[in-house]
């Protein structure tokens, strides 16, 4: 049988119903008909559905994403390419992005998460940057939901399996549990790479008649319509969506990395784009549209690993570890030799044209002829209706009983959202490449820049979804501020962020409202903190049976450390240091709305989230950074989830050193120790530096209060019973392994 014979497998008739099955609304299908003036072929319908779905076109989010600040004095390249590029001095740049792989990870957690890592790594090395760090922000359903443990085990193993094999250190991230993720988990993967500023590669080609080259692994029938799935709500028919999951091979990806690096150094690459969602379609259309060129593809030359693949299947396959490149034709032989050396496919599959059409041929027959700009950068864009989220009423004073501080702290520190994540990160190779300075479990992970004595990068990923649910605007601000604060506490100058916006169905005005307000909050924080967005990803339709996830705009930030010798740990360092609370307008805690204390101790998720005063945040952060740089502090940890009590406990757990803390008698101890007021840092310092610290804080207009001192072996909060640090450590470490071994 002729491998290309599709006569026994006639293509289905294209009509509005089939278009609807492909996720195109009646209006969108009409737009297709108007645009091309005829009924599309089956392959063309597939191409439209891939390009116009939410995942590729950002049709619901584009209007709002444009409002985010994306420029800054260190920003080399903002959103629009595979990843953002930021200057880190000495002619070097850091290239980074975060991207979701939520839907595939729910269906097949190991492969879904693994290919998520593969995809984000390719985004980074497509631009010419060698990956140096990865992080993962994970959200799972309630701990008592029957699927949760299976999903945690699969996702963590998948991330480890791919990342460890590829050889990138997994240095940080987040893990949260909440019942609103029962039907839609979130797997947000971040990667950062290093490149020389003058050796960045883009997906925008120039020149007509240049060869379009297919690189990497062969094409199979995996993941066909993965991108369309990622833009659909789940329902009980989810079982049928299963075969769309693709399987990755990290060893091929490692070869692809090395081959691409070599190819880029050879000067043969004019433009390059990785094949991610909607594979060949998306990469070819994006390259053509960006370069104002047409693309002509001849699918007969595409390397396939299965027989009789149709044009439709080839155009929509999401087989992993593939790239598309526009090649300098004079260097074809050298380029081919490099790929053959790494045992990867290299095939010329088309050329750039000047007709702005996307034309696809199979067996000599033209199976698609479409306007490339309308598919790509001029795809539909919606201004979806949205409603203003309703603010949560403030908590009434005294409407819950105060509890014992020591007992509450022990409960909190061993609760699912605060317990040690060692079980997770020990499965990740966080040390490979030999540059990891600060390992997971601190405020921010720190990775040294190889070849530099003192330079390093700090990475942190943050968002507090329960705050975003209660007030998306404040929650959006808080996510950015906390990321900025974590980088600051590690001694880094925050540079820029990538945002991974996970929300429910944008066609519902109340969900769209949370999305709009969260973006507005993120934008405001980015502007005031001078912390621009350089890349990002939007994941909508995270709903199951009409219930949406908590709004989760994950913010991953990168900071620059110019002198590694000056950083201080987040745990206590000496006994008899003074313990200082720096930064908040009200130095001790006051705000219990949406706190973990309220949720874990009183089972209530009430009230508004703590507000973020961005001007104050900036003042405090800038001061903290200068105190670290000047060697005036011995330890710094930011105050976040769980409030001051949990912050102090974490500092004790990290170090084995305790502290005695004395709040004023007039304060409510519960609010003082568990209020989650923002913009605060706990620091320790030598007693003899007291005067200078007060002087510096006064000049900067930042509040400082001495709240106690470090002592050996136990943590004593006010009048509560002292807790042995060892007991805190045991509680903190116990929960995760126990949960996974149940």
């Amino acid at each position: 049988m002729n491998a290309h014979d599709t006569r026994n497998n006639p293509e289905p008739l294209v009509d509005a119903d089939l278009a609807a099955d492909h996720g195109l609304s009646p209006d969108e299908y009409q737009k297709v008909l108007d645009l091309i003036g005829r009924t599309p072929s089956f392959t063309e319908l597939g191409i439209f559905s891939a390009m116009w779905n939410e995942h590729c076109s950002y049709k619901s989010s584009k209007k709002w994403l444009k409002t985010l600040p994306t420029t800054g004095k260190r920003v080399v390249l903002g959103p629009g390419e595979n990843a953002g590029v930021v200057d880190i001095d000495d002619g070097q740049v850091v290239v980074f992005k975060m991207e979701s792989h939520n839907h595939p990870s729910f269906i097949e957690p190991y492969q879904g998460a693994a290919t998520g890592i593969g995809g984000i790594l390719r985004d980074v090395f497509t631009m010419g940057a060698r990956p140096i760090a990865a992080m993962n922000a994970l959200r799972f359903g309630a701990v008592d939901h029957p699927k949760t443990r299976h999903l945690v085990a699969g996702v963590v193993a998948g991330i480890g399996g791919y990342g460890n094999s590829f050889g990138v250190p997994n240095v940080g991230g987040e893990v949260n549990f909440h019942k609103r993720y029962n039907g839609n988990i979130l797997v947000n993967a971040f990667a950062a790479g290093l490149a020389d500023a003058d050796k960045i590669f883009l997906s925008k080609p120039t020149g007509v008649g240049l060869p379009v080259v297919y690189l990497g692994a062969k094409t199979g029938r995996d993941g066909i319509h993965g991108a369309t799935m990622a833009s659909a709500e789940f329902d009980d028919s989810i079982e049928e969506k299963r075969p769309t999951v693709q399987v990755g091979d990290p060893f091929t990806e490692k070869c692809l990395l090395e081959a691409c690096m070599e190819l880029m150094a050879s000067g043969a690459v004019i433009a390059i784009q990785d094949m991610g969602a909607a594979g060949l379609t998306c990469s070819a259309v994006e390259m053509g549209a960006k370069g104002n060129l047409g693309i002509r593809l001849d699918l007969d030359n595409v390397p396939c690993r299965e027989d009789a693949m149709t044009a439709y299947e080839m155009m929509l396959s999401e087989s992993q570890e593939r790239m598309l490149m526009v090649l300098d034709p004079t260097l074809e032989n050298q380029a081919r030799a490099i790929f053959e050396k790494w045992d990867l496919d290299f095939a010329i599959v088309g050329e750039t044209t000047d007709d702005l059409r996307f034309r696809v041929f199979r067996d000599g027959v033209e199976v698609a002829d479409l306007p490339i700009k309308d598919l790509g950068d001029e795809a539909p864009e919606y201004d979806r209706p949205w409603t203003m989220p309703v603010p949560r009423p403030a908590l009434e004073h005294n409407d819950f009983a105060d509890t014992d501080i020591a007992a509450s702290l022990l409960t909190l520190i061993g609760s699912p959202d605060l317990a040690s994540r060692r079980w997770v990160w020990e499965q990740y190779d966080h040390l490979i490449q030999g540059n990891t300075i600060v390992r997971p479990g601190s405020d921010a992970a720190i990775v040294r820049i190889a070849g530099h004595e003192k330079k390093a990068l700090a990475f942190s990923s943050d968002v507090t979804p329960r705050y975003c649910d209660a007030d998306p605007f404040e929650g959006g601000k808080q996510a950015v501020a906390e990321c900025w604060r974590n980088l600051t506490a590690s001694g880094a100058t925050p540079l820029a962020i990538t945002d991974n916006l996970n929300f429910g169905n944008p066609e519902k005005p109340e969900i769209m409202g949370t999305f709009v307000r969260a973006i507005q909050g993120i934008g405001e924080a980015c502007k005031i903190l001078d912390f621009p967005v350089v890349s990002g990803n939007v994941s909508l339709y995270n709903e199951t049976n009409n219930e949406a996830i908590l709004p989760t705009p994950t913010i991953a930030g990168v900071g620059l450390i110019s002198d590694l010798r000056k950083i201080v740990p987040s745990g206590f360092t000496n006994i008899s240091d003074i313990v200082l609370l720096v930064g908040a307008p009200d130095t001790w805690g006051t705000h219990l709305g949406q706190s973990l204390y309220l949720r874990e101790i009183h089972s209530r998720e009430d009230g508004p989230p703590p507000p973020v005063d961005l001007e104050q945040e900036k003042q405090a952060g800038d001061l903290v950074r200068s105190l670290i740089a000047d060697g005036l502090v011995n330890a710094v940890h930011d105050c976040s989830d769980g409030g001051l009590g949990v912050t102090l406990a974490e500092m004790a757990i990290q170090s084995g050193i305790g502290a005695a803390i004395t709040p004023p008698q007039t304060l409510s101890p519960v609010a003082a120790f568990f209020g989650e007021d923002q913009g605060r840092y706990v620091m320790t310092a030598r007693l003899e530096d007291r005067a200078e610290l007060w002087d510096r804080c006064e000049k900067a207009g930042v509040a400082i209060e001495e709240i106690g001192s470090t002592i050996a072996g136990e943590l004593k909060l006010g009048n509560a019973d002292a807790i042995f640090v060892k007991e805190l450590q045991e509680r903190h470490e116990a929960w995760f392994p126990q949960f996974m071994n149940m």
Partner: protein
Amino acid sequence: MKARVLITLKTGVLDPQGKAVQKALGTLGFDGVDNVRQGKVIEIDLTETDETAAYAKVSNMCDKLLANTVIENYQIELLPDGT
């Protein structure tokens, strides 16, 4: 009764291990190997004597644990005792 379960990857699912075996065969001089796909065999001794019941039980095991039905197929073979 003994059950023998054969688990294979679904058609079209990438098989890196099979690919590595294929390549190794080529390196060792075995030419003419067009494709290699690998899977696994699991043998289970059951106390169940009724074939229908045994089959149902093993199917359930496959769905729940032995096979990843997202990417794998399974076939069950029941063997009388003594084989």
